[in-house]
């Protein structure tokens, strides 16, 4: 077990810790590589930028611009300028092209000017998408070659392209300090590569960055063999540590066992101690591993730090040197400006140098020092005064250090121009030949014709003296004789500490630099910094000797005191502490587990015995109960199933145990059970557990039944079980359903009863006078009788009857009750307040299930008002009939008198009356006749009404024939045809006289309202409409507009004047009233000039077809 444990730890270490450490190592290496790469990329960018600016200044020359615009190289000044231009201390190889790519001028054939293979860069320059182009050329030996192209701009527009071919040793481009024995640099553009020496690299590993604008890739190549060696070393150390830990633990274990074996009394102790060997070994191993890992990590981190410091030293020196060189370039530009100008005024000098001083803020001052002889001195001083320097004179310092007018001597080198203006006051006029350092530098510069720096000199105010150097560059002029003589020196004053501080501030925080001027070997001069040799670690310092403008400077870069603070890594201590803590925790946990395990074993035995007894008892109880008991596990699998369940579900034990409980459930319980179970286990939300509810079960035969289920959660030996107790409640449910239904019906009935206006009372059957009491009275009784329902409870049903009530009716009621039959009738009741009211009473016996009458229901409705109305109607009709009779009789007499006497008058006095009189008499006669007709019709209309007692069954065919006979004269006269099918004519139950009146009116109208010249044709059809007969009379007369369909049935309504067609306008009104009196209805359809169709119906009421 222990061996296995150690092997496991070893494997884990191999699989986890070692790869992690390896990964850390790799990552750090990559980070270092990227850092180096980025630094070198920045240096490269500056290098290219420097060359670009150089070329741009040439492209900005008016001569070049002019040539580009004219696409001409005819200007000799152009040739002179381009052929003599210097880049990189040698004559430049230049090409000037126009905007179409044509070659305007080239200094030589280094650049072909053919960009047909790739015209994108040319187009990009012309359209100013890019400010320059860099094209890498194939490497020749150690020379890095490339072509740099910039646009020639005029008024912001590209008018040509100027290109320069540049070749430089590749080591000048890349920092030698960054190129070590196991690294190199490569530049790659498209398929062209230039690289530093890299054949010493055995296993190249590359990290690259893209200088995006120009598709240029800078690659840092490191030797992976170095990394592999380091990795192997680390892995070996780790494995050694593990192995050592294992060995140590093993030997401890072995020794302990040997000691225990010798001592018999320690057998039990041995057993116990044996049990604790595992945690002891784990602890030992853990501590050993923690110590090893901590020390290893510390070593790695320290080593890395040292590497970083070394690299930083390298770069710091390089950056300072480069910065100084850039400042010296300014001096070169100033020299070039002088060379290019025939005359430089004070303003010219200020205007030229001012922008550069702004850009290079570490240049303290720029000066012009003309070579002046004794004779030239007055003119020089006068010239300065004319320029506005009113107090200008050549000065020098005396022995006391004060500035005084320079003594008379052969030569002077006074500061004549100085910028910035703020310093010019201090500098102007001072004779630099009086400064030994300056004098030496100027002489050397004149001799070599190049920039030469002075030894450090003190600069600044007495309170703030700082070390400065002055760099001089000689300016020569050509005499009329063609000789080149010294005109003077241009110079820049640099405060080195300012330059170094700027570099340090930007980049370097952990290292310091110390600069010495060692040009004089025996007399080194400190230029910058101070170094405490005692505290400096020699192995971490870097010393470089560099030539700065003719002076030998020694740069010493070393880590500062911050390094030692930073080098104190806290991470290894943390690892150690955590490792030991972790080991202790594991050890403690193991010990606790072992102890608990032992105790658990003992407890287990005891509990096992008790459980066995308990189980047997429980089983007996479970098997004998009438309720079903089922247990399931957390997955819903049935683990126990008692005998009662078998009876309830129909499944036996073996069919259920071991299967999912859902087999006993119908849908939707079946589908949702598992979800409920899982939900409870996850959330603890109880739906049924711990409570009881009604659910449905499914028997073996597939039927479902309601069951009551209670579920409890049980934990046994850490296992969760769910115990359910269930009972079949099918019978109970049925009974409940029945009761519920009955209650609902009763409730519905009660609501209905309470809301109707009638009185409903229920009384128990029994002796009328003794036992029959009201047990229920509806709410409507109070409105009708004045008694509240509760006042009638227990009273006799005859409580509302009074003295005025018809005794016959009461007797009839009593007989019905005795006979236990229904009663319906009207009787007079008495209100609680003593008033009487008529009621319609209905009594119904209510029988029980055996058919015995248990109750009587009394339903009474107040008919007092309706009865009064009926009485009034009867009275009114009687009066109306009498009025109609009297009216017809009384009116007829005077009318007859009028008609008779007017007729007589007409006949008797015919000879004596003129036409007018005759006409008047005719009018009177006709009017009286019409009045008679109206009265008759009115009378008839008034009399028409429902008169069911005069109905008899008659054949409709017979009535038709009678009607034809009555209208024979009109039929013959008009030639009318009456068409019908005798077999269709039914036998109708009706008043024949009145029906004949209708037929006569319809046929008569059809004849009367016929079309001129056309014989009337009347089609009669009869249809059986189940409950009634429908009669149709269709004619071919003049018809009318359908909109009059109702108007024509109104009394006295006519559509034509009396002189057109005779009539009173009552005919159809009477017909409709007759038909409605039969219980039918009448209507019409018509179309003008087409004819009319009249319809009416007569209820069958027992009539049959003939």
């Amino acid at each position, binding site marked *: 077990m222990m061996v296995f444990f150690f092997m496991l730890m070893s494997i884990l270490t191999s699989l986890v810790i070692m790869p992690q450490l390896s990964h850390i190592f790799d990552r750090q290496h990559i980070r270092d590589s990227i850092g180096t790469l980025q630094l070198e990329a920045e240096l490269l960018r500056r290098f290219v930028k420097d060359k670009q600016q150089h070329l741009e200044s040439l492209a*900005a020359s*008016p*001569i070049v*611009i*002019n040539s*580009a*615009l*004219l*696409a*001409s190289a005819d*200007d000799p000044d152009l040739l002179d300028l381009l052929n003599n231009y210097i880049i990189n201390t040698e004559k430049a190889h230049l090409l000037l092209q*126009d*905007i*179409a790519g*044509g070659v305007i001028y080239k200094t030589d054939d280094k650049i072909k000017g053919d960009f047909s293979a790739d015209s994108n860069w040319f187009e990009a320059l012309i359209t100013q998408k890019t400010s320059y182009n860099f094209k890498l050329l194939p490497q020749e030996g150690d020379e890095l070659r490339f072509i740099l192209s910039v646009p020639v701009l*005029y*008024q912001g*527009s590209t*008018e040509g392209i100027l290109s320069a071919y540049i070749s430089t040793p590749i080591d000048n481009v890349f920092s030698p300090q960054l190129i070590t024995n196991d690294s190199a640099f490569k530049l790659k553009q498209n398929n062209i590569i230039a690289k530093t020496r890299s054949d010493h690299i055995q296993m190249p590993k590359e990290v690259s960055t893209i200088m995006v604008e120009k598709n240029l890739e800078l690659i840092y190549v490191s030797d992976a063999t170095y990394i592999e060696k380091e990795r192997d070393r680390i892995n070996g150390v780790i494995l050694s540590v593990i192995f050592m830990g294992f060995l140590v633990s093993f030997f401890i274990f072995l020794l302990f066992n040997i000691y225990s074996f010798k001592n018999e009394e320690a057998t039990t102790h041995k057993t116990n101690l044996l049990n604790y060997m595992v945690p002891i070994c784990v602890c030992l191993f853990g501590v050993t591993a923690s110590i090893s890992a901590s020390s290893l990590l510390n070593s790695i981190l320290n080593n890395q730090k040292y590497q970083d410091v070394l690299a930083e030293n390298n770069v710091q020196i390089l950056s300072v040197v480069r910065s100084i060189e850039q400042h010296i370039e300014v001096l070169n530009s100033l020299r070039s400006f002088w060379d290019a*100008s*025939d*005359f430089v005024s004070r303003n*010219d000098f200020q*205007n*030229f140098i001012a922008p550069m001083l702004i850009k290079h803020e570490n240049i303290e001052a720029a000066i012009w020092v003309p070579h002046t002889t004794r004779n030239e001195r007055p003119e020089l001083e006068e010239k300065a005064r004319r320029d506005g320097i009113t107090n200008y004179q050549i000065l020098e310092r005396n022995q006391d250090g004060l500035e005084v007018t320079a003594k008379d001597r052969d030569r002077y080198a006074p500061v004549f121009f100085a910028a910035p203006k703020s310093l010019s006051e201090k500098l102007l006029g001072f004779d630099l030949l009086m400064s030994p350092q300056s004098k030496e530098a100027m002489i050397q510069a004149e001799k070599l014709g190049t920039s030469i720096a002075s030894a450090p000199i003190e600069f600044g105010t007495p309170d703030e003296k700082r070390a400065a150097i002055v760099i001089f560059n000689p300016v020569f002029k050509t005499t009329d004789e063609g000789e080149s003589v010294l005109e003077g020196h241009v110079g820049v004053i640099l405060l080195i500490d300012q330059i170094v501080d700027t570099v340090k501030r930007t980049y370097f925080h952990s290292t310091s630099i110390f600069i010495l001027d060692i040009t004089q070997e025996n007399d080194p001069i400190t230029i910058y910094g101070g170094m405490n040799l005692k505290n400096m670690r020699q192995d971490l310092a870097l010393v470089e000797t560099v030539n700065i403008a003719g002076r030998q400077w020694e740069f010493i870069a070393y880590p500062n005191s911050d390094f030692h603070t930073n080098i104190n890594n806290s991470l290894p201590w943390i690892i150690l502490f955590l490792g030991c803590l972790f080991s202790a925790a594991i050890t403690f946990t193991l010990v606790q587990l072992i102890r608990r395990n032992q105790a658990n074993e003992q407890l287990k035995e005891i509990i096992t015995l008790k459980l066995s007894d308990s189980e047997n008892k429980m089983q007996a109880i479970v098997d004998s109960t009438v309720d079903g008991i089922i247990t399931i596990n957390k997955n819903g699998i049935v683990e126990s199933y008692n005998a009662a369940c078998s009876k309830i579900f129909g499944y036996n034990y073996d069919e259920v145990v071991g299967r999912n409980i859902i087999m006993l459930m119908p849908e939707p319980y079946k589908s949702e059970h598992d979800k409920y179970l899982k939900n409870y286990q996850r959330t603890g939300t109880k739906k049924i557990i711990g409570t009881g509810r009604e659910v449905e079960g499914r028997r073996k035969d597939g039927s479902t039944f309601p069951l009551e289920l209670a579920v409890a959660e049980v934990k046994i030996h850490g296992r969760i079980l769910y115990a359910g107790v269930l009972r079949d409640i099918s019978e109970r449910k049925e009974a409940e359903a029945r009761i519920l239904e009955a209650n609902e019906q009763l409730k519905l009935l009660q609501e209905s009863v309470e809301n109707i206006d009638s009185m409903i009372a229920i009384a128990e059957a029994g002796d009328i006078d003794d036992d029959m009491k009201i047990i229920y009275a509806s709410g409507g009784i109070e409105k009708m009788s004045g008694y509240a329902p509760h006042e009638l409870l227990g009273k006799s049903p005859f409580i509302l009857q009074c003295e005025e009530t018809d005794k016959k009716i009461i007797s009839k009621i009593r007989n019905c009750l005795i006979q236990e039959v229904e009663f319906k009738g009207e009787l007079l009741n008495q209100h609680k307040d003593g008033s009487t009211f008529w009621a319609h009473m209905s009594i119904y016996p209510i029988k029980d299930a055996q058919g015995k009458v248990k109750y009587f229901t009394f339903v009474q409705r107040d008919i007092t008002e309706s009865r009064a109305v009926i009485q009034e109607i009867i009275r009114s009709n009687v009066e109306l009939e009498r009025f109609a009779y009297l009216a017809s009789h009384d009116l007829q007499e005077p009318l007859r008198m009028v008609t008779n006497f007017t007729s007589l008058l007409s006949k008797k006095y015919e000879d004596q009356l003129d036409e007018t009189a005759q006409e008047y008499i005719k009018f009177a006669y006709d009017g009286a006749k019409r009045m008679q007709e109206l009265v008759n019709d009115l009378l008839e209309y008034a009399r028409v009404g429902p008169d069911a007692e005069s109905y008899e069954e008659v054949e409709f065919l017979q009535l038709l024939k009678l009607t034809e006979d009555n209208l024979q004269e009109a039929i013959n006269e008009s030639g009318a045809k009456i068409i019908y099918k005798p077999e269709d004519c039914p036998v109708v139950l009706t008043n024949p006289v009145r029906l004949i009146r209708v037929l006569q009116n319809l046929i008569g109208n059809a004849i009367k309202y016929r079309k001129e010249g056309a014989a009337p044709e009347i089609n009669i059809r009869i249809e059986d409409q189940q409950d009634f007969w429908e009669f149709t009379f269709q004619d071919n007369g003049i018809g009318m507009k359908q909109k009059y369909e109702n108007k024509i049935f109104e009394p006295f309504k006519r559509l034509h004047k009396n002189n057109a067609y005779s009539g009173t306008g009552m005919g159809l009104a009477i017909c409709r009233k007759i038909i409605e009196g039969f219980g039918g209805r009448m209507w019409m359809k018509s179309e003008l000039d087409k004819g009319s169709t009249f319809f009416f119906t007569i209820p069958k009421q027992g009539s049959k077809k003939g």
Partner: protein
Amino acid sequence: MKYICFICLCIMAFPVMANDKIIRIYQDADLSNHRKSSESIQKGIELAFSEIGNSISGYTVEFKYLNHRGNVVRSKMNYEKFINDPKALAIFSGIHSPPLIKNRDFINKSKALTLVPWAAGAPISRYPSSENWIFRLSLDDARAAPVIVDFAMKNKKCKSPHLLLENTPWGDSNLTGISKSLINYGIVNATATRFGWNMGEQSSRMILREILENGHDCILLVANSIEGAIIIQSLLDIDAEDKIKIISHWGITGGNFHEMINATKRTNIDLSFIQSCFAFTNSVQSDFAKDVFSRLKKKYRNEINNPEDLHSAVGFIHAYDLTRVLIAAIKQAGLTGDIKIDRNAIRLALENLQSEVQGLVKTYKKPFTQFDAKNNVNAHEALNSNDFCMARFGYADEILILGDE
């Protein structure tokens, strides 16, 4: 039915065909650094064509303006666009002579009908062939130099003039002309200084100091507006005790010289320059000129209300006259739709114009004839030295013809 469809198609196609009858008038000029002079020329061209409703011989006239920014190569690229356009009839130039001089052979060999309303370089119109495609209505350096020199020597009483010329073919052209004219005044080997475009103030001051120190009292200046302004500003900065007189070619009127050397500064210098003799600021205006200016105001009502508002006026005046001459030639020759035939026909019509053309500078009777390198070198020059006058800037930056004030 078929015939009806055919007729309908014809009717529908008519507008299309009608739209196909287009001729284009190009301009290749500096629309960036000397924009005002180019726009002035454009106004002249468009106003003249607007008089005939921008339509001639059944063709609608369109205008297309290309920018060479003073670059000879770019001008040639623009010419290639003109030559390859089947509807391009003629091309006007701008203020700069170098592109026309440098590309003269190419223009003539490509038979690009070129009209020059401003550029004054003498070689421009003197392609040594009877088939000469460049016609100028403008100053001609060959004949302008005497006018400048006469004015300097007679009017300004120069005793020791110094030539200050831009280092371009235009400068070369004037160096020859002016030097030759000075000989008549006994000045042989006249001193000259050349400068390039993009000359800075410092260089300018150096040059001027040298001129002053050498005792010259007049500068005969051949520069465009940008370099001209730098030179004049440098002169003002030097603040020499004796004012040196500047007699200039007209290049300084082509841009915004008058803004860079404003009226206040101009009070401190004696500056005059050559122009053609017509200006809308002349005190006497013909009815024709009044009418033209009235239409000019109407067409550019938001921009031009008074003669002073017309900047680089000489561009407008010459372009207007030259366009009217062109229109007369087109009417005489007619248009066939074959652009090569039409260009040649118009070229010949220009050389043999039958009708008189009224212009602002003068009325043109046969302004051009066939070029002959020996006997008729001025054949393609519409103006002569009688049409040239000296002028100065007025206080409102207007150009005032001297002698008319």
